[in-house]
């Protein structure tokens, strides 16, 4: 491998965006719950919040579903509604929601699921 190749790879690694913290698919019951969250749509982009990369974790503990989610920005006018919609989606399938909002790392367009990005 030439020096140019090595440098180019090193530079690409430095410039590459950090891996997305969002989840787009899960197995088993948690996967079914994640799919249920796809009913909640981002009002501006028109994508579901899972494809948007707003869901960071879904954990099922007995009848409590713990969801970690974020928003496209802090102070977003739609944030409260999306949060309530997520809770409602979980209640609608018979579980108790526990929704935590996190902003670290902040959402960025790179967090949109690759297949959804292709259709934008």
């Amino acid at each position, binding site marked *: 491998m030439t020096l140019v190749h090595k440098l180019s790879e090193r530079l690409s690694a430095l410039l590459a965006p950090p891996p997305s913290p969002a989840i787009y698919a899960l197995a088993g019951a948690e996967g079914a719950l994640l799919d249920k969250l796809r009913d909640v749509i981002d009002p501006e982009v028109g994508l579901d919040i899972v494809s948007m990369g707003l869901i960071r974790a879904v954990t099922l503990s007995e009848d409590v579903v713990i969801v970690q989610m974020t928003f496209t920005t*802090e102070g977003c006018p*739609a944030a409260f*509604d999306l949060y309530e919609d997520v809770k409602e989606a979980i209640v609608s399938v018979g579980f108790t929601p526990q929704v935590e*909002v996190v902003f670290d790392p902040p959402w960025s367009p790179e967090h949109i699921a690759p297949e959804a990005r292709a259709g934008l």
Partner: protein
Amino acid sequence: MRPDPHTLIPPRVVIPPVAVALIAEPLAWGILAWPGVLDGAAWYGRSGLLVAVHLITVGTLMMAIVGLGWQLVPVVTAQAPPPGWARLAAVCDALILSGGAGLILGLGWPQPLGLLGALGGAGLIFGLVLRAAGVLWALARAKGRRVTRLWLLFAELSGLAGLTLGALLYGGRAGLWFVLPPMAGIAHHAALLLLGWVGGWMLGLGGLLLPMFSLSAEPRPWPWALAVTAWFVGLALGVPAVWAVGAALAALTLLFSLSRRARRGVDPGVWGAALGLFALIGLAGVSLLWGPRPEAVALALGLWALPFLRGVALKILPFLLEVHLFVGQLQRAPTAKTLTGERLPRVSMALSILAGLGVSLTLLGAPVAVGRIGAVLGLLGAALHIVLLTRAAARGWLAVVKRRALPGLEAT
């Protein structure tokens, strides 16, 4: 942690100034289309041009910034607004709307500088100072987004300086006191309010909203910070070349950010705002080559500020409408884009740009007929903007009433 429901500001304080902005723009174009206005002849005994310029600056740009600012300051500060924000907004709206109406009627009234104009100007200034206090308080409590906050902070300071100068000029023309030579005073008044206050708010908010809605990264911090510094240092020192460097850098930084968007389609909001940014680069070139010129005001208003504002409005207004209409409804609601459709925003944006071009060309020396045709196109474009927003509101409202998406409005 749960999101604060107060980040969604009550529509009763956002809608009135935005509605006035939507109505004032076609009125301004209508006056400019009137025979004699663009060639400087008297209009009902007064300057129609002065009335039209204030309908655009105060009636359209200022009111849009005031109305949208109430909703968007919490986005800039990344937290819920300070306590009493909606009450402050309601008081300021009442003062600013009634004051602005009084000022414009006073400027257009056949009797020179009537009491109405003075009272209106005083109310407007009082409302804007009160609003500035609220905005500065909110910015002081903010976290993050330092460069956006700088745009807004300097915009407010410029606005306060510009308003003080406007009051001095008004009093001076009424013979109340001696002030600066009128032309120099007017130039500074226009620069501080149009480039400082309006420009600072438009670029500060535009730099945040346009990338957000286009799914691109925010402008790169260093060039964005250099741009805001040069923009306001140039204005404060009265050195057009420094301002021009800031303007060109701001436009290029934002254009670069928009060019790297994840949303590949270029909707009218984005291309309108982008054309406004190219006009800003042109304006910077004019200032760099020839220094401050009165014609630059026409370029600034017609080709930069109005298309850029329309571009931002085409993104944010349907979104706010959507959020307010579909509050707490777990359903596949129509998106903002489906509510407005695509053709009307495109036509409205194109008409607005042609209008700015026509009027600017006339003020730069082209035949008056070109400007009047431009003004008629501007009237049509602004009226179409009202129609498309009204139609979007009606479609959304119907969808809510019927509890189902209307045919053809399903979310994609």
